[in-house]
């Protein structure tokens, strides 16, 4: 801290010096101006009045300019040098996700952050690159090897909690208090809610900061509009109509696919049944389910253990047995591209996925590939057709939280790390990282909107993640200040903005954000996440592919197994702690 104080003192002194210099300049300028005026008066005796006037004006201008210079000189240092800038260079390491085979640490975005941090705080930043899809495994391995970067992040809070229990994490609460003034941008972006989201109400410990999810749209249903047009059908608006569309796709495979008719997939899904049929699932959940029940039964973020979920899977099972669902979905695991290839080749009629899935990845998007492979009319559009018991097109949205940032106990640069978070949370930084370079990453529209351009994935300027979220660690979603709204639909070039806008509107229609309860840590959730999700996927796959007669047996066995290996313990502990905090009585 003393170093910082010294820094501050030095800065103040610098500012004072500059002001003094400016004052001197002002006096000199005044003298000069007066002299000039005198000379002018002497030289031009004939036009005394005019000359006097002119000279006075010149003097006035000179004084004004000098005054301005002084003002600028006085203000300038305070603007450029942060009071928290270290005197000696400090060094921190930061986790950075890699997707595919690009080298994010060599991109101009990484340079921007490194340069900015060095200039602003004298902090050298080194990025530690690791795969996006192996993220939870990597974190554990890095911690065990004592090589975890100073700033880590993951999507799973129970993971952080389990490492915190082992003494692997730093309690951030006291540091947030101490350095509150140093991190205004972080507070502005995340808000008190997100910062203290995971604070244990009993112990006050804070193991992670919840970063900000700007856009909480989740999942959409997509359908091939060009196929519907070909068949003379309207966009579906109910479950029954949607099913009729799938049946029509199946029965008209020859017409729609010609010699590839055998490749017809009316409805595609993946091994991740919960996510990939989420809208379907949620449409069977009673609309009047309370926030409390939603919390207690809602450990699974795919909503597969809410009342009604079974009926949703039963419908999917019926579709599967009717030949409406991709037969081989269960054979392909996470990261396999077979399904995407089917979508790109134009064999698929409908599917549910992330609300903007077919439009992501610029020139390599499903939409772009589909147009290349099939024709300019081919398009997946979002539709709203899964009504619930109240007739609402319900979607469970994400809350305001996204990734969880934590500092491993090996971090000895806490202030520098917090300053890093503050730096990447400032609106200018986010804007620069999200929009990149004008002419390469974007063009500006007349209304100021940022129109993103497709960049080749071999180009260092390529953004491997949508809105460059791998770099904007504290912010997920477009965050361009006044231009956000106007720019949103342009974020998906070369996709038509109208198509994207419609998808977004539908994804938000009927949205419900599950409530957040501040409770002590749920111990039953520690270390079990992967096991539970693996078992969930496995039994849902079996249930969907079972014969209609076997469905109940397979599904019920699966749920029972899931509950017995940890699912029930989580529900019980959630119910218990919720009752202790709010008095809510939960009945199974």
């Amino acid at each position, binding site marked *: 801290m003393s170093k910082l104080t010294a820094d501050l003192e030095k800065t103040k002194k610098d500012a004072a010096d500059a002001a003094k210099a400016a004052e001197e300049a002002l006096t000199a300028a005044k003298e000069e101006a007066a002299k000039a005026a005198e000379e002018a008066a002497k030289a031009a005796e004939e036009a005394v009045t005019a000359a006097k006037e002119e000279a006075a004006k010149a003097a006035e201008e000179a004084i004004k300019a000098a005054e301005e210079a002084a003002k600028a000189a006085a203000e300038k240092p305070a603007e450029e040098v942060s009071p928290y800038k270290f005197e000696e260079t400090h060094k921190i390491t930061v986790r950075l996700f890699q997707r595919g085979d690009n080298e994010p640490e060599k991109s101009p975005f990484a340079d921007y952050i490194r340069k900015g941090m060095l200039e602003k705080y004298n902090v050298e930043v080194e990025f530690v690159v690791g795969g996006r899809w192996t993220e939870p*495994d990597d974190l*554990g391995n890095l911690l065990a090897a004592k090589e975890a970067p100073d700033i880590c992040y993951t999507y799973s809070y129970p993971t952080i909690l389990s490492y915190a229990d*082992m*003494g692997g994490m730093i309690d951030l609460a006291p540091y947030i208090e101490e350095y509150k003034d140093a991190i205004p941008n972080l507070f502005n972006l995340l808000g008190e809610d997100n910062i203290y989201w995971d604070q244990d109400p009993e112990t006050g410990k804070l193991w992670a900061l919840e970063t900000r999810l700007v856009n909480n749209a989740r999942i959409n249903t997509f359908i091939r509009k060009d196929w519907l047009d070909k068949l003379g059908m309207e966009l579906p608006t109910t479950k029954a109509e949607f099913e009729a569309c799938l049946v029509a796709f199946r029965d008209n495979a020859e017409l729609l696919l010609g010699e590839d008719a055998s490749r017809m997939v009316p409805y595609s899904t993946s091994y991740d049944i919960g996510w990939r049929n989420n809208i379907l699932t949620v449409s069977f959940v009673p609309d009047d389910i309370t926030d409390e029940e939603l919390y207690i039964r809602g450990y699974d973020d795919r909503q597969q253990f809410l009342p009604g979920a079974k009926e949703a899977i039963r419908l999917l099972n019926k579709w599967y047995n009717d030949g409406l669902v991709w037969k081989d979905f*269960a054979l392909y695991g996470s990261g396999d591209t077979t399904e995407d290839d089917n979508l790109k080749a134009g064999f698929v009629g409908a599917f549910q996925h992330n609300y903007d899935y077919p439009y992501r990845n610029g020139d390599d998007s499903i939409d772009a590939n589909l147009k290349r492979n099939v024709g300019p009319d081919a398009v997946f559009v979002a539709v709203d057709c899964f009504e619930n018991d109240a007739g609402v097109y319900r979607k469970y949205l994400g809350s305001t939280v996204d990734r969880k940032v934590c500092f491993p106990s090996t971090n000895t640069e806490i202030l520098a790390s917090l300053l890093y978070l503050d730096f990447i949370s400032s609106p200018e930084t986010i804007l620069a990282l999200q929009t990149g370079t004008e002419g390469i990453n974007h063009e500006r529209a007349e209304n100021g909107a940022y129109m993103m351009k497709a960049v080749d994935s071999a180009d260092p300027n390529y953004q491997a993640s949508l809105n460059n979220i791998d770099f904007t660690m504290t912010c997920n979603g477009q965050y361009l200040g006044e231009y956000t709204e106007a720019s949103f639909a342009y974020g998906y070039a070369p996709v038509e903005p109208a198509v994207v806008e419609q998808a977004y509107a539908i994804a938000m229609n009927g949205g419900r954000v599950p409530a957040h309860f501040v409770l002590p840590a749920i111990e039953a959730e520690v270390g079990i996440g*992967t096991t539970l999700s693996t078992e969930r996927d*496995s039994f849902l*796959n*079996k249930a969907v592919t079972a014969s209609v007669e076997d469905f109940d047996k397979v599904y019920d066995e699966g749920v029972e197994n899931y509950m017995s290996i940890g699912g029930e313990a989580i529900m019980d502990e959630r119910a218990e702690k919720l009752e202790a905090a709010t008095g809510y009585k939960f009945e199974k």
Partner: protein
Amino acid sequence: MKTARAEKTINTAKPGRRGRAFSTYMHRYGTLYLLLALPVTFFIIFRYIPMAYILMAFKKNNIILPPWQVDWAKNNGFEWFIKAFKDKLFRRALGNTVTLNLLDLVCGFPAPIIMALLLNELAFKRFKKFTQTVLYLPHFLSWIIIASLALRLLADNDGLINIFYKQMKGDPNAVLPFLSKEKWWIGSYIALGIWKEAGWGTIIYLAALTSISPELYEAAAVDGAGRFRRIWHVTLPGLRPTIIVLLIMRLGYILGSEFDRPLALTNNLVTNVSTVLSIYIYQKGIKGGSQFSLTTAVGLFQSVVGVLFLFGANFLAKRFGERGIM
């Protein structure tokens, strides 16, 4: 050339100080000890020192601190063993490991022996060599490649074999569920294992076959033994010691499990039969769970059972008049 090099090494060795016998001994065999030093160092660093970490199995789960700084686990340190045996998923993995390994043993163990006998009977030397080489090849493919090939060939709908099968039957719903039904999957798993490793496994048997004296065959032929008789009465007895040694080693591995083979071949429909102990350890220990203590306990259990089987098989082999391996 060889002797020259050996002499040079001997000359650089320090002269022994503990008497003439030792110095002569080292003089003669020092080079061999030098050769041994490298593998011994390897084993000490990568096999023996890590054994200290078996302690984790008896300590509270902590991946941050070294195990000797962590408190003992509950139940006198046996918390994780108890937890494992209470865990349904562990019991399932244990059952699957034994089932798949036994099937592998029953179907996979005789395969290279039969193949070696067949190769041995081939008359044309060149054709035999060519066939041998072709049979070795699959061994050099990783399971990841084989699993991808299997998926393209055997998938229910998009697999080549099923595409032909559907056309043959004229029924688009006809399907051979090689990978999607549990029993079929086990068959595919075992068959692919045989396909990959049987050829490679013949090497050791073929080497043993060369040591059988041709005179025995000639004598048998003189006595009027046909081909099958000669195989039965000469070749197989000649192979017996080799077979026994390999069988003992296989039995020591009964609870051990391959990792990449089940991991690459599995899918969500067959996890009930495909999740073996190595996968269980991977999921609990590395993939997000970080339960190092539990998984170390499971690993230790595997090793102990493996050693017991090894001794048991060795004991039985000796009882039946074979030499065994210990």
